[in-house]
């Protein structure tokens, strides 16, 4: 995946408030 494009990876990193890494937990919802 190339950064700089609107990729899910880029979008995930944009959710951070820091320059760290990110772990996304995907859940089925409706809890």
């Amino acid at each position, binding site marked *: *995946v190339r*950064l700089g494009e609107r*990729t*899910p*990876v*880029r*979008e*995930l*990193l944009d*959710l*951070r*408030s*820091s*320059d*760290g*890494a*990110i*772990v*996304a*937990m*995907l*859940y*089925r*919802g*409706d*809890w």
Partner: protein
Amino acid sequence: VRLASNHERLHAAGVELVAISVDDEVRQAGMARRWGLSPVRMVSDPDGARFLRPLELFDPVERGGIALPAMVGIGPDGTEFYRYRGRDFADRTNDDDLFTAVEALGLAPVDPPPHRPSVEVPADLGGFFRPEDFAAYFRGNLFGAQAIAGRLTDPDARAVALQHRDMAKATVDAWQEWRTRLG
């Protein structure tokens, strides 16, 4: 819940946490309130177009399309350093692999602000999974898996049952710790 209860360890390893589902923001805000999930940024991806489908972690059939139970770690340079995909709704791995992968990155600690939903939290949380039911749910899993493991003779099948038991135990343990913090 397991990861939220360990958020300090993840933050110390330079990792921020997000949770993604097809739920709308109001539903997510209610769940986060009920479960005290402020260390986790909740992200709504209703049709899966933004994250779930591009990550190939979307089940288009069930309930009209929902996330597969999964965990994805992305390093600061965009490298995917961890991916776990559950085989089914009850398949949630132990987190040791994740912590090992995270701590191997050797990143500086982060201190993200608590997540605050951008929508109003529902006043009535009656329709949300109740925290007091959580331990019973996973204790049921634990003892069911333990009993089934005892009946199985095939080593591979037995290993699957014991893995499920251990997952349930880890979840109950994390919940007890989390509950103490919630007060």
